């Protein structure tokens, strides 16, 4: 799904799922080179080398009960991912603010100059 981009799945905690995990993408700007190199910081991943893309988990039965779903019969899988970060990764964009500022030059570049 992400082509050559390295991904990392790691356990995490959310109050509404158990167990839970998060999926990180390797930073598409520095590719991890900024980690431990204060002379060349990466502003996109804050020199962490990874960017959190989404979180997921098995829905806590109490959440289902609160929604009126019989947790003895049904289980749930919850997940969500960052739309803007997906776009950033796809287009190697460095700054999330470009997505929302509405500069037409940015948008045009994404849609291949379609009017």
């Amino acid at each position: 799904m992400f082509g050559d981009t390295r991904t990392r799945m790691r356990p995490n905690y959310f109050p509404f799922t158990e167990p839970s995990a998060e999926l990180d993408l390797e930073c598409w700007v520095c590719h991890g080179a900024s980690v431990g190199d204060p002379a060349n910081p990466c502003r996109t991943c804050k020199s962490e080398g990874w960017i959190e893309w989404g979180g997921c988990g098995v829905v806590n039965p109490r959440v289902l009960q609160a929604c009126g779903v019989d947790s003895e019969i049904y289980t749930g899988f919850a997940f969500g991912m960052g739309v803007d970060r997906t776009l950033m990764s796809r287009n190697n964009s460095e700054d999330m603010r470009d997505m929302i500022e509405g500069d037409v030059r940015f948008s045009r570049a994404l849609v291949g100059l379609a009017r």
Partner: protein
Amino acid sequence: MRAPLSWLREYAALPEDLDGRGLSDALIRAGLEVETVDQAGADVTGPLVIGRVLDFVEEPQKNGKTIRWCQVDVGPHNLDGARGIVCGARNFDVGDFVVVSLPGAVLPGGFAIAARKTYGHVSDGMICSAAELGLGDDHSGIMVLPDPGLVPGADAAPVLELRDDVLDIAVTPDRGYCLSIRGLAREAAQATGVAFTDPVDRAVPLEITAGYPVELQSSACPIFVAITVTGVDPTRPSPRWLARRVQLAGMRSISLAVDITNYVMLETGQPIHAYDRDRLDGPIVVRQAQTARSSPPWTTWSGRWTPRTADHRRHRPDRAGRRDGRSVDRAVVGHPKRGDRGCALRRDDHRPDLPAAQAVVGGVPAVRARGRPAAGYAAAHRVAQLLVELAGGTLSPDETVRGSVLPQPSTTDRR
């Protein structure tokens, strides 16, 4: 939570060649969100050495300042028996050990040291303050090292505990125990398959009332421990390792007694205070904080704070108050209202005709977020032990343990 690697090593037998980044990878696999690994002290490069002041001449300048033209022994780095250095500070004497950055060194902020002409002399290096080395905000004078066994010319970084890897971890709410060095060291030991030594090394005894009187008036606080240490010397400074670790963990070094309580709090996750015995009158009362109508605002270390809602009260159940409803804050060592922020115990204690100061240690266990009440007793003893070792105190055999931490029965549905 900011965890210096050297501190984690005290309780987890991590391999020597494992650095902060390697441990970070292991902890991330265990589900801990390590955000960054700071290489503390890495912004100081080049020759930073121990110097010994051999001689100095005070020279008043036209701009009103008085500079000191110093001859400093830097061992193998000497030129003609010493180095000539101009220094603007005056808080040192002949024979003192100081920290010298020699030409070629770079200090935090990209401050490059070179031999340069200033005030009519060629200053062949710089005598450093704590602030210039990134070791805190003290810029009132240069650092004078108290250690007697120092060698001029030796690398100053180990003496200053300058370099350490610090793991900055965003602890998730299910892992409150990781808001302590103890919890993180246990995770680190588990993640790397090495031995863990628990700093909480003793069980809580049944109630004892032999020590300083304590009244427990809130069920939200299951246990309160008070241990008395007498003869604490308020003039002793914090040893460098203590001040540095507290600082690397994100707090300021204030004074020995305050640093010790903060150190043990960070280590065990137990909030803990040292009280000045001479300033306590009557028992320490542990009760729910009251709202503004019934109670004056607290003066906290960072300013005034008024519990406004029932929610606030829930969050601050471990406040100690005097029986008459006034707070014991003024007895808490290091409190600003005492007017002696930089000093461990009150000023009067410096008068030679008064007996040596005493400190009561109160271990206030956390209730929920970090809730390991059983660690409170060991934490209080750890504070007492450090006050004895570092502040010259004597542990009183009489102690107080109010409340109990007997496990509450819990029920679980098994399917």
